[in-house]
């Protein structure tokens, strides 16, 4: 049993999996490359304080990292696709995100200060967009990633319009 919160109504776009897969692959290459650099650095340094059982097998480091990480490159995007959901109902934006750790955000439209639609170059290639919803607090702000560009544009416009109508300046 998890938190007593129902799933938000809408999934993000299926193409978001591709986006996350690319990002994960990129991170994977950086991590393995970085650890290989560290390994070569330690191997070349000849530091005496490093125990020999480490320095003799230092090249296992990038290999182990690669083997451990590789499954996650595939798991993360799929897992994220299962978790990431969003919904706008009752003038509250309800979004869920994350994979290993997850996060639910509730932002009432009346407290929204700005709504941005953003597209990175890769997102644009895939026809995706991110909707950023900001309030006066970081903990009341949310960004919904991996939306279909059309859906994102409509959502951003709806939110901005509705926020203008409901503007509540108590904060």
């Amino acid at each position, binding site marked *: 049993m998890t938190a007593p919160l129902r799933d938000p109504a809408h999934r993000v776009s299926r193409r978001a999996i591709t986006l996350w897969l690319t990002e994960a692959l990129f991170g994977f290459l950086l991590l393995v490359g970085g650890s290989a650099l560290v390994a070569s650095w330690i191997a070349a340094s000849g530091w005496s304080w490093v125990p020999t059982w480490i320095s003799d097998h230092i090249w296992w480091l990038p290999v182990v990292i690669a083997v451990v990480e590789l499954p996650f490159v595939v798991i993360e995007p799929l897992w994220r696709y299962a978790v990431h959901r969003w919904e706008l109902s009752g003038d509250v934006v309800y979004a869920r995100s994350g994979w290993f750790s997850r996060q639910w955000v509730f932002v009432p439209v009346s407290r929204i200060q700005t709504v941005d639609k953003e597209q990175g170059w890769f997102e644009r290639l895939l026809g995706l967009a991110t909707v950023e919803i900001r309030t*006066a607090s970081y903990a009341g702000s949310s960004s919904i990633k991996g939306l279909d560009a059309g859906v994102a544009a409509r959502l951003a416009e709806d939110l901005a319009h509705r926020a203008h109508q409901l503007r509540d300046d108590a904060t």
Partner: protein
Amino acid sequence: MTEDSGASDRPEPSTGSSGVPDPSGFLGGAGGHTSGGPQQPGGAVWVPPSRLSPLVLLIDPVRMLPSLFLPLVGVLFVGGFSPSSFVWAALGIVGSVGYTAVRWATFTYQVIDDRLELTRSLVSRSVRTIPLDRIRGVDVTTPPLHRLFGLAVVRIDTGASGGGKQEGELDGLPLPEADRLRETLLRRSEAARHDPAHIATVGGGSRPEHGPAAAHTSAAPVEERVYVRVPWQWLLYGPLSGAFLLAPFALLGGAVGLAFQWGSQFGLSEKVAITAGEWLWQRPILLILVGIMLLLAMPVAGGVMYAVFNWNFTLRRRGSSLVAERGLITRRSVALEHRRIRGYEIADGVLERRAHVVRLWAIVTGLGDSRTRGQLLPVTPRHFATKVAAEAIGPFEAQLRPHPARARQRRLFRAVAPGITVAAASFLLGWAWIGLLALVMAVLGVPLGLDRYRSLGHAYDGARLSVRSGSLPRSQAVVERRAVVGWTVRQTWFQRRSRVLTVIAGVGAGSGGYAAIDTGEEQGVRFAAEVTPDWMAPFLTGTDNAPSATRN
């Protein structure tokens, strides 16, 4: 204020503005015409562009002395103390004085309609416009020199997040004028905001019991009420807070730095410093003595600094603001608009808890640097601080609900695990000493973790919510319901396994978010739903006990 009548027709604008045809007067005149005469809706008199007090001309050169000193000495040295070198040095002084005079003459400020304009026309003309409805607080400080001449520095806080860029500073107003300006700005800023139909949202929140809070919305004559005058005996609690404990070290460091900087001018070189260091190093007893003296000086110097900064701390209500005033040498007075206060934060460290004393801050929307500016009380007894908070802002009496036992395991694990890990790694690598040290840290982590768990709690009393966490510094925040702008619920994989989660109330004030850490899954979500039922109800599962939107 009693000085009001005298302050409205001060002598200095007439002496200044009659001579110089002021460009901002032109602009101000235009603004004044559109608003139709001198009488403003807020009841304040239209203010012509004014200058700072000419007395700042006496202060500025003194303030510049330290920065001028070295160049002047340099000039004298280079000139070999010849008559011409003195002439050059004198020219330097005259030049800097002249510069301040020109700066003074070209700076004006003016309240026009709904904005404050600060105009500086030294080389190029720059006008900084601060809309009155953006002003969130006005500070009046009196540094020692200013106090000597009866002057004050007025700082205008606009809550802009871009550092100090957007803020206004008026350095060198006569004290009565500074107070008057503060009243004008705060009252007018409130009037400007009350023009639209904001009153509903403002009054809709829960007001504490006293009537004046509701009555002060119109520009009533300024009423004053002193909540607190902190007795000097309580200054003795200061060192418990740990504030300024490092003061002796900072002073020593500053002295060493100065010695290096100035020493080179007088022929002291690094070599001398190194030999001095070696000499000291060979006499460990001396070193230890110095160390002990520094340690002994810590609470004393800390206490003295604390007392100097918090001397005669008073908290009063003036009109629609809370004004906190403190300080022995520099008297600092911070006005917080009552309308913008959303709650308060009570903090106490380990030692402070032993002595049952706490510190109190206001949580204010858009107040930068809230930890120094929002301070409502220095270290005072807990029951007193809660009473003041209840009286000045609003009471909170609900009992904090404890978090589940799984949260205790997590606090313990997080306090102990790093020590254990480091110890294990060090023993594996054969560094016994570090390993032992880490083990000690791990053992100390047990009481720390238990205490962190004891601190955890959350509650809602129908008007305000409260969360508490921390240990070494423990802090409890009390925030009005209407200040909540959203919720974030977080659950890491480990929290998921322990079936707990962290609920963060997004608040557009103070630190931005106040977290109830490691609540039970059901408990945390219900907490958010209890505070804002109409936002959360549609998304809750379990139809049997979904809270009906009775409130609001």
